[in-house]
């Protein structure tokens, strides 16, 4: 029987032993092995054989590697040399790594925001299978129809709302939601204390609160479970406390009550479901669309243009915010490319300065591959340090992501695995982008040529010169494009902030009277109460004017489709106009100083059919005609509105054209769940507590919430455009400063290398002015090409940003003048010092030093 161990050993050694003596060496081993087996036993001999074979193999491998270094040792040598070179002159490397870190940091942070808001699954177990729907109102029938599709493990419903929680210290407002009992199981979350709602319909009068509410409002009261609290005027029992990290359906939700689909809720209920494993999203989406079409014969309210099925993780942000986030990510990517180009030109300039050293290496026998390898090792260090510092920067930046973006997602905006992957990919891309061109161009050397010339006289090889200038021109072009985009955004924001809203909100405070419907069952009683509130407020000496309303600009009113067709029929969509509807008391228009331009304002004896319309709606419905006395219908609502007056248009402070719609006003009506009192004060405004006492005197069940002042509310709306403008502005500043810095360093290098040439020119009679012009020309040619490219790029950027423009156009002359001015000034500043240095070269000193 052949000895298996021997066969293995022999096979292994065949790879290592030199062919010429292989047989005899193996013969010796075999002879000794047989001897061992015969005398020392099989196991001992086997161990001995392995040991001997190992010794042989190692000795021959070591002998062989003495002649040809292994890959790992080559790599180690390259890295070691690169490290020594970098630490000897760390300046350019640190500069490059810093620029890369800024690029990677900005891009990673922006990516984290986009990822958390738009891409990542919801932060629940199996979050990628959680979907929600927002097209049709949920009825018990719809829920059953979804369940019957057999695509879902579970289907539940929820409706977001705001809860006023009454405590000893006053009323606190918390965002909450009514949810069906299975929602918590569907999301696979458990309460930290107590329990969640019991199966369908068995938990009325119960509430679950978040640990956040428990700690902040109730001071972490240990006897919280079973305690009664007052939510929206109703008494409920707290049965469970959810972990502080749990937020659903919105990032601000902290209170939950049971949802009964047969009772009307303040907001429209929506469906959330967990897909069965293996059910593709696209299939589910298609089937739900079909289902929705079948169910559309039942009464349903459309909720806008959201897709019928959405991943739960995808934030419910407007298309506008969605677009803005992607836009900023593109902006960050552009900045990243600018920084990479900058690092690339820096490295190239640095390599050109080392031409003599590289030439010496080539003369001593270093191959180009070897030089490339060593250069690559240097760049790898810069890339790793840059990526590391970039991650740290990104981590710091995520804390600064504006609320207008982070407030919309259930996910935390953090540097998670995906962001780290993105950062690493960026690091690798950066190293390739920045290192490849310099390494390729910079290591191309004619050894003899570079040694024959003195280092100062090497006027930069053509290839390296052209590559550096092209990189710079590209950089200037990108910076130019970014600058065009960001100046347009900043100008849009400024225009928006200065736009006359069409109403005078300064000095007006707003309070919200709550629990009206809980306090007064009948419309008559409610109308009576509303009248009392109005009268008592007006009677106060510190209040000059009072107006009541159900909606408050700049919050959009209830939206509807105004049309001229007969009331109660389905309107022709194309001939309809989306409008905001504000239900207000007659004092509303005078209080906000909204002028009535035709007809009259609302009067106390007007019915709900009488309407005052905005100028824009009048122009759209009856262009060029007198609208007074004409009628229009809204949606499928029965009855028509009769126009009694035309009011000046009000402008909502938004760039999003979807939101600033034409408006019309109708009388308040008798029944209302929410009621706002708009108060223009005489001197100092009354305290909130005084106003609360006032409404409590009318009925003790009534509550009162302070709302933000009208002026502040307008400012709130400016936050998104402001955030976009600020971020884009920051990107542009970085790009411009970097480009100018890049131009400065490259010109300084170039001047350093051409000192001898300048010296000779000076000796031959060239004036300092002439030499200065030479350098300036070099720099400004690059900038000129950059601006030409940037003009085209900028125009494209401006066009793609059209949706974000407000009061400016793509060809806005001020923007373009500002861009050209900024780039030209920055370039002149950057080229000035190198040019002056060149002009100051003294031929005598130069010759002495040679």
């Amino acid at each position, binding site marked *: 029987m052949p000895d298996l161990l021997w066969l293995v050993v022999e096979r292994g050694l065949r790879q290592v032993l030199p062919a010429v003596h292989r047989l*005899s*060496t193996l013969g*010796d081993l075999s002879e000794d092995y047989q001897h061992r087996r015969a005398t020392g036993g099989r196991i001992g001999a086997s161990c001995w054989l392995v040991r001997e074979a190992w010794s042989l*193999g190692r000795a021959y491998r070591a002998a062989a590697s003495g002649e040809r270094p292994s890959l790992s040792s080559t790599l180690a040598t390259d890295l070691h040399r690169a490290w020594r070179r970098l630490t000897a002159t760390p300046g350019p490397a640190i500069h490059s790594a810093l620029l890369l870190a800024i690029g990677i940091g900005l891009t990673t942070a922006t990516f984290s925001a986009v990822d958390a808001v738009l891409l990542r699954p919801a932060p629940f177990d199996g979050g990628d299978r959680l979907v929600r729907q927002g097209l049709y109102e949920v009825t018990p029938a719809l829920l059953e129809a979804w369940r019957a599709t057999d695509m879902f493990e579970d289907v539940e419903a929820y409706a977001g709302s705001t809860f006023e929680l009454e405590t000893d210290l006053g009323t606190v407002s918390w965002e909450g939601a009514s949810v069906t009992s299975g929602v918590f199981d569907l999301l696979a979350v458990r309460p930290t204390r107590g329990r969640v709602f019991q199966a369908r319909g068995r938990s009325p009068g119960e509430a679950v609160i978040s640990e956040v509410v428990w700690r902040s409002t109730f001071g972490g009261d240990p006897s919280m479970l079973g305690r009664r609290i007052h939510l929206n005027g109703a008494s409920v029992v707290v049965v469970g406390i959810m972990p502080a990290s749990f937020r659903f359906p919105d990032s601000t939700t902290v209170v939950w009550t049971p949802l009964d689909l047969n009772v009307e809720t303040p907001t429209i209920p929506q469906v959330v479901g967990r897909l069965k494993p293996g059910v593709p999203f696209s299939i589910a989406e298609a089937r739900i669309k079909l289902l929705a079409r079948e169910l559309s014969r039942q009464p349903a309210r459309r909720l806008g243009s959201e897709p019928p099925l959405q991943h739960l993780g995808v934030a419910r942000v407007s298309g506008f915010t969605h677009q803005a986030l992607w836009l900023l990510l593109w902006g960050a990517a552009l900045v990243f490319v600018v920084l990479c180009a900058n690092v690339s030109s820096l490295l190239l300039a640095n390599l050109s300065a080392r031409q003599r050293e590289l030439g010496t290496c080539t003369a001593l026998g270093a191959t180009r591959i070897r030089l490339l390898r060593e250069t690559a090792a240097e760049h790898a260090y810069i890339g790793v340090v840059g990526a590391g510092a970039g991650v740290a920067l990104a981590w710091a930046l995520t804390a600064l992501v504006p609320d207008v973006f982070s407030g919309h997602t259930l996910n935390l905006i953090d540097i998670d695995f995906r962001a780290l992957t993105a950062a690493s990919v960026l690091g690798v891309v950066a190293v390739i982008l920045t290192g490849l061109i310099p390494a390729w161009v910079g290591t191309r050397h004619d050894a003899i040529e570079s040694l024959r010339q003195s280092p100062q006289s090497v006027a930069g090889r053509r290839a390296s010169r052209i590559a550096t200038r092209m990189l710079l021109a590209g950089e200037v072009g990108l910076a130019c494009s970014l600058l065009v985009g960001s100046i347009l955004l900043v100008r849009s924001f400024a225009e928006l902030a200065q736009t006359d809203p069409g109403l005078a909100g300064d000095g007006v405070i707003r309070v919200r009277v709550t629990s009206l419907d809980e306090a007064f069952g009948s419309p008559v009683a409610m109308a009576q109460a509303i009248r009392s509130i109005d009268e008592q407020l007006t009677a106060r000496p510190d209040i000059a004017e009072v107006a009541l309303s159900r909606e408050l600009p700049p919050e959009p009113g209830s939206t509807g489709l105004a049309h001229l067709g007969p009331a109660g029929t389905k309107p022709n969509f194309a001939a309809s106009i989306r409008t905001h509807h504000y239900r207000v008391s007659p004092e509303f228009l005078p209080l906000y100083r909204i002028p009535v331009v035709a007809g009259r304002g609302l009067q106390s004896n007007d019915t709900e059919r009488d309407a005052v319309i905005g100028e824009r709606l009048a122009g759209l419905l009856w262009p060029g005609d007198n609208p007074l006395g004409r009628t229009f219908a809204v949606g499928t609502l029965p009855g028509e509105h009769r126009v009694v007056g035309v009011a000046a248009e009000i402008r909502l402070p938004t760039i999003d054209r979807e939101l600033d719609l034409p408006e019309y006003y109708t009388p308040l009506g008798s029944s209302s769940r929410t009621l706002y009192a708009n108060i223009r004060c005489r001197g100092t405004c009354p305290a909130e507590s005084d106003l609360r006492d006032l409404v409590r005197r009318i009925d003790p069940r009534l509550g009162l919430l302070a709302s933000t002042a009208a002026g502040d509310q307008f400012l709130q709306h400016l936050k998104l455009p402001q955030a976009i403008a600020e971020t884009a502005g920051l990107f542009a500043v970085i790009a411009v400063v970097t480009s100018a810095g890049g131009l400065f360093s490259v010109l300084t290098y170039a001047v350093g290398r051409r000192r001898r040439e300048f010296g000779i020119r000076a000796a031959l009679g060239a004036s300092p002015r002439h030499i200065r012009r030479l350098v300036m020309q070099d720099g400004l040619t690059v900038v000129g090409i950059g601006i030409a490219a940037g003009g085209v790029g900028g125009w494209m950027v401006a066009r793609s940003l059209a949706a974000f423009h407000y009061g400016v156009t793509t060809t806005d002359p001020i923007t373009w003048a500002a861009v050209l001015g900024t780039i030209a000034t920055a370039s002149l500043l950057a080229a000035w010092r190198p040019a002056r240095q060149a002009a100051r070269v003294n031929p005598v000193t130069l010759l002495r030093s040679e």
Partner: protein
Amino acid sequence: VSQPLPLLGEFEALLLLAILQLTEQGREAYGSAIREDLQQRTGRPIPRGSIYVTLDRLEEKGLLASREGGTSSARGQRPKRLFRVTPIGLRAVKSSVTALIRMHRGLEAVLGRV
């Protein structure tokens, strides 16, 4: 002009001496035998790898020569590689040993008789 003798390391000198010993005794000087002789006389274990690598090196330097010898079933019919010391090798080993003896002279009081 006499060619300068290559310098020998300690292990190289020991190997050459072992081969000379085997040849003098009329035994075959091949890998296994050389190693066994060395281990016996020096009383220390010698790694197999270093024997063969050093033998190759000495042959390369021209201090050793080798030829194919007989075979056996225990060797799996693989031939032996028989070594002999070349004249240069002989001179080199002689010079190394002489140097050692000279260096030893006068140190009997310290090192004792060897």
